[in-house]
């Protein structure tokens, strides 16, 4: 659950900046290259120099993957309750409302129907910028419903993950979302309906330990952090430095947990090709 500490350091500074005064420029987190927004968009939000994949959300990913004009959003208005009346340094409800205000989103995932290269699918895309992409009851419910819709409509399911893990402010109910989403995917599997999981930076904790790892095919973007325990926790536990490239997409491919690493600009083509192999 590294998302919280991470948020202060990264969310504010990384990703796509749209409103920098004096021009729409973004700086690559990896090589420092300054890229104009137009160029960044046409390059699928990846660095023109080093291929670094900027963290993007549903607003950016929907046009990349889904045929123009075919996305029809579902459960767009679903918002989190506060089942535990959770308070730490801040009230959970304030945290959620703050995130809604800041991001314009209602929670950390958006779901809907759409087409990929003419093939009808059910789609879910997570937004890391909403409380670290953490999974509480809303994310769990929306993913489970997406899987149910895929089952009922006999359409392939595609989920793009980016998450720091389960949302601790909803306690054990957040944990139960791992079981809920996995159970729905088991039904999808029994019915022979394809599920493609796309893992982006970062995908850790409860999301990795449930739907993100359960694709018929698991695709990762290059260089994405993917794992169960966060690197900080592991480092703390074993008291040793972690090896270079540990828990990155390439590491997971090497260890057999990812089928293929795909550059964002080839993502749609790869998904479409796979879907043609997996559907009649």
């Amino acid at each position, binding site marked *: 659950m590294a998302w919280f500490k991470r948020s202060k350091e990264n969310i504010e500074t990384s990703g796509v900046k749209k409103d920098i005064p004096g021009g729409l420029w973004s700086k690559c987190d990896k090589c420092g290259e300054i890229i104009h927004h137009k160029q960044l968009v046409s390059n699928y939000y990846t660095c023109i120099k080093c291929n670094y994949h900027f963290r993007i959300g549903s607003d950016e990913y929907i046009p990349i993957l889904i045929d123009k004009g075919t996305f029809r959003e579902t459960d767009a208005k679903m918002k989190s309750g506060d089942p535990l009346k959770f308070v*730490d340094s801040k009230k959970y409800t304030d945290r959620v409302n703050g995130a809604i205000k800041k991001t314009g989103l209602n929670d950390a995932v958006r779901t809907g129907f759409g087409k990929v290269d003419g093939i009808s699918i059910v789609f879910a895309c997570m937004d890391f910028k909403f409380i670290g992409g953490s999974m509480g009851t809303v994310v769990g419910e929306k993913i489970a419903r997406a899987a149910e819709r895929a089952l009922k409509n006999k359409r392939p399911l595609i989920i793009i993950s980016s998450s720091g893990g389960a949302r601790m402010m909803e306690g054990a109910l957040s944990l139960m979302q791992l079981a809920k989403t996995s159970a729905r995917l088991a039904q999808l599997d029994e019915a022979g309906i394809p599920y493609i999981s796309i893992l982006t930076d970062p995908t850790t904790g409860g999301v990795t330990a*449930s739907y993100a790892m359960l694709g018929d095919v698991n695709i990762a973007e290059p260089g994405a952090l993917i794992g169960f325990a966060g690197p900080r926790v592991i480092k703390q536990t074993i008291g040793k430095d972690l090896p270079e490239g540990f828990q990155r997409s390439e590491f997971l491919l090497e260890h057999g947990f990812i089928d293929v690493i795909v550059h964002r600009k080839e993502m749609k083509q790869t998904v479409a090709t796979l879907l043609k192999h997996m559907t009649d």
Partner: protein
Amino acid sequence: MAKTVLDFEKPVFDLEQKIQEMRKYEGNVDISGEINRLEKKVHQLRESVYSNLTRWQRVQLARHPERPYTLDYIERIMDDFVELHGDRKYGDDKAIVGGFAILDGKSVMVIGQQKGRDTKSNVYRNFGMMNPEGYRKALRMMKLAEKFKRPIITMLDTPGAFPGIEAEERGQAEAIARNLFEMSKLKVPVVVVIIGEGASGGALGIGVGDRILMMENAWYSVISPESCSSILWRSWDYKEQAAEALRLTAPDLVEQKIVDRIIKEPLGGAHRNPQEAAMILKDVLIEELKLLSKLKPEKLVERRINKFVQMNG
């Protein structure tokens, strides 16, 4: 008598010790009246201490070093236990035990996380923290149970899945996800009991079932109070507040409609009388399995999936 005394139990233990001392002289002087009076007093004290536990105090009881673990229960409530080992892929994870056993004359598959009692056995058991091969070992045993149409009992008691380099290399996340996926469609009854610590995905990895039972002083949540404190309060010192905020006790979990039933413990916790705790658990397990045995496999799976799908808070 228990050796480890938690802070809040101290008044009870002091009085118990005083009574014990007095009993030594009982033969010489007639102090039975005084002893009786103190017995009554200690009883009242126990009632008042243990019926008003804070959430953090329950967490401490759940971690009590003398608390019964999986093997202690198996030994007390089952016969003919044949322990099975290994995941057939990589190795044998000692943080989880399991095998066939007889409960009330019937064959069952029992699987549970296992902690150690002292430093040496804790190292051997990795403090009850499983690696990926542990989840795969558990799944292999569950599939065996399914093949031979035997009900499954799982016992949850872990501070979490092991966060290590090798665990990640061998796919900790995939191993847990796969178990959640496979357990949701097992065609035999699955009864889950949280007997001690139910920490996050590491516990849930063997925790999908038809009935979720929880011992009175166990805890179950998405994160431990300490880790929650360190992340949300940015300090390890707010574990009491974190435990309160997480609402992680058995009554809390019943209220959240995650846990179906609380299993009563002897006053003061299961470690005060492991035999009695085991007998209570045994009766509950027999009763629960009897009810589940009436359901057809398809119905069982449908009900189980619906149960988890409905967990919305």
